[in-house]
């Protein structure tokens, strides 16, 4: 089976930035024309090398989870891509799980909530698609990313020793979506608690 080209019917949503000096547009992955944009951003900003097959693996199988952010200045040339998020989802050890593979926002555009918005969009799609949880890895030194995911409810589930080629450790971050049937209602727990032999003013 050869790699087919995706239909280029990408919804674009334009958002007026608060300062109004430039227009920011969030774009769903729309096909082959977006691939070089994603690749050049990730290659330039992330430490790990990815082959073109890795990019294609993600964007062809889950185009709905890949978003780009365009900046459209009034005077300058059009279509500068300043950020992107690339994801996947699927079965993992009996759970349907989303995975955020790459997230990049150019330095000059950070601190404006762009990355949060990109990730939030992907996570929403994952949630609506029936994912039970979302995971990703981040360098332990990447304070910005860790804070961003922390605000979204991710926990640091594991530390992965020298995970990256550059020798830096990673955190495996996880976001668990709420489940309706989770745990017992609080009323029942009250009774069981009395059976405990723990002598503590706090319990």
């Amino acid at each position, binding site marked *: 089976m050869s790699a087919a080209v995706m239909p280029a019917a990408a919804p674009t949503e334009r958002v007026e930035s608060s300062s109004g000096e430039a227009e920011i547009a969030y774009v769903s992955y729309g096909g082959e024309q977006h691939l070089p944009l994603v690749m050049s951003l990730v290659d330039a900003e992330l430490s790990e090398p990815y082959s*073109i097959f890795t990019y294609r693996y993600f964007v062809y199988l889950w185009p709905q989870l890949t978003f780009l952010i365009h900046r459209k200045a009034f005077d300058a040339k059009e279509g500068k891509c300043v950020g992107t998020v690339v994801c996947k989802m699927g079965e993992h050890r009996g759970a349907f799980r989303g995975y955020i593979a790459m997230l990049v926002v150019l330095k000059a555009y950070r601190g404006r909530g762009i990355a949060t918005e990109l990730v939030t969009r992907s996570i929403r799609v994952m949630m609506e698609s029936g994912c039970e949880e979302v995971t990703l890895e981040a360098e332990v030194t990447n304070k910005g990313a860790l804070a961003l995911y922390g*605000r979204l*409810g991710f926990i640091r589930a594991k530390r*992965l020793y020298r995970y990256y080629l550059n020798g830096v450790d990673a955190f495996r971050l*996880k976001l668990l*979506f709420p489940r309706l049937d989770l*745990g017992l209602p609080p009323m029942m*727990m009250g009774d069981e608690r009395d059976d405990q032999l723990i002598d503590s*003013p706090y319990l």
Partner: protein
Amino acid sequence: MEASSSSAGPAPPPPNIPPSGDRTVWADASQLVAAACADLQDGELVHGENFSLFAAMSALEIMDPKMDSGIERSGYYSIEEAIEDGIAPVPLSLDRTLDIQRTLDVIDHLFSCEATWHKGHTLAQTVFTCIYLMKMERISSHAVLNSFCRILRATCNAVVAVVSTARTHEEEDLFTMSFGLPLKDEGDDKCLSVLNSVEETVSRQLRACKSHALSKRKTLEGLESLQDNPDVEEGYCRALLCRLRFRKHFHHVVTCLRRPHGRGLDLARKHVASCLSELSLMLKSQEFLKSQSNITLQQGDESCTTASGCRPFGFDVSLNSRLMSAAPPRAVKILTWSDALGYFEKLLRDLDVICSLSLDPVLENVLHFIAQFQKSVPDLVPRAFLQTLLVQDGKLYGRDLFCDVISRALSLPDIIGDKEFQMNEFVVQLGQLVINLLKILCTNTAWQRRKLGKSLQDWSTISIQLELALKREFGETRNVLDHENMCMRVSKQLLVWTQEQTYWVASRFLILGFELDLYSPSEYCMVYWYMHVVFIKLIEKMQLRILASNENGSARRKGKKKKDHSKDSARDAAFSSSCLLLQCYVLLSEGLSMLLAVLRNEGKSFLLPTIFNTEQERFLQHFDLLQKARIPEHITYYSFKESAAQAHMADVMKYNFFKEIQKIIPSLKGSFASEPEKLAELRQIEQVAEHNRIALNIINSVGVGDPSLRVSFEFTHHPHFAVAVVKRS
């Protein structure tokens, strides 16, 4: 493909391909293939439905410097070519002074390479970037370099063997990959005698230098001198001698530590001390070597891999890079010579701690020893040495059967060696769990925490099975009668001991989360809450075990002398101080969790409302493995939520947990007077308690709801227990 499509008419199939049959017929597909090829753009791939991420990630793009390890860098295609180009001359110079100078640079750079290898890189990209080491036959006439390289190679080989045997380096597997490098040679078992004879010659020369200096005569006996300039001969002799001696003693350290049953520990310790003193002589020699070196050849201070500061001859970093071509290149920065000195000093201090191991068969002490050892964050090599020492041939120190270790832990010396006990399926399983536990505890903390978390399920399963078996065999009698049979008593004690181990593993799992920075401040409240629950259960199980062993003791004591009584009471005192120390942890965890709960309830801080989930999901994720293993039973998110919701400032002040700790500490200091590391721990706990007590008072007097109040938590006094820092804005 192009060639075959140009041939006219269908060609007959090659002889080894079966002929066309009734249902199959051969057809020329060349044109189809050619058309398909033309259709594929650069970077496109023909793939199936099951094209996996692993397959995609395994692809490497040739000529991409980020991915292609084999990309041409130096221009040398082989060692031979590099040698022909003269980058590794033998001798290193025809000028004898320059020759010894350069030899010392090679020795120093190899030292830096060795440290870099230990720190997690491949041998191929570190030690074996040395052309002299790759082609040892070339230096057989160069006595100094030959003896040095030979012992270095033998030591590397021995260290690889230890780390491979330990097999606890799953995430550090680069270490043992030798890619078919010349790591072994027939003559290497004689490396010590080769080195000894060179060392003997140099030290004789050094003595000669000294006596000449005294008699003001400045001539050198040609044959034995290192070089021709009498003014610097002594300096070179000293510089070389400490390097050779370091290698000799380090080789001895490795050999002694590998002896079975820990028999070489005392001797290893002496060699560790010798290594350390040679290291300090090496550092001393730096001044002399710097003064002798050609300044223009010196490297920048931040990248000096030699004492002299000169770039060494005979190394090529890219020679082995093609060996690694199956994976993207990893950045290798060789440690500086002074960092390498620092590494070896730390390594030797860690090995010295291992040498101090008393080969104590009491499991509790062994676990405490490893936990204490891990506090200094030892690297892979010392951790592997410790592990191979602890578990040999499935026995503790290669000496004690683990079933005997367990019976000793149950305070049942009568059943040591008892065949029925040894064969019991629970005891066999528990023995295996203890072996695994010891091995896991020797791994790096990141890997260790994951493995501990997974092992909780195994511990818990055995507990449940033991409990069921106990009920099945002996019913639900609660009262322990004097005449109860041995079998029941052993089973009960085994159960309590298993539960105690389970909670110990759980507590270590939780506290390692702090060391690995896995918790965020908004989660501290629930983490300390869970810790205090686990610590309480751990004390409870420990006390039950002591109670049971006392009963055994009183049964045994009847026929004993007075002397044994005092021995028993000393043991009881040790147990009670262990419980009291745990009690401090309970109070610290409880106090911190409750303080955080109050700050949440009344100060509206340390809460983290998020759009996708709630605190309940974060609780479930952090404690999933504990919850699944029912550690402890009946504990859920709601138990935490309810406790936390009821926390008020008035209660925190009333129960003043931090003050309680301060009451316990003085008596503990007495009990631990002879254990310096426990005293250090007590001091840390005392600090945390004192700072938090004061912080609590300030928060209370300012008012927890005061909008100007800023509270943060820092780990300035203890790695697991935070100190509240109060500020007003």
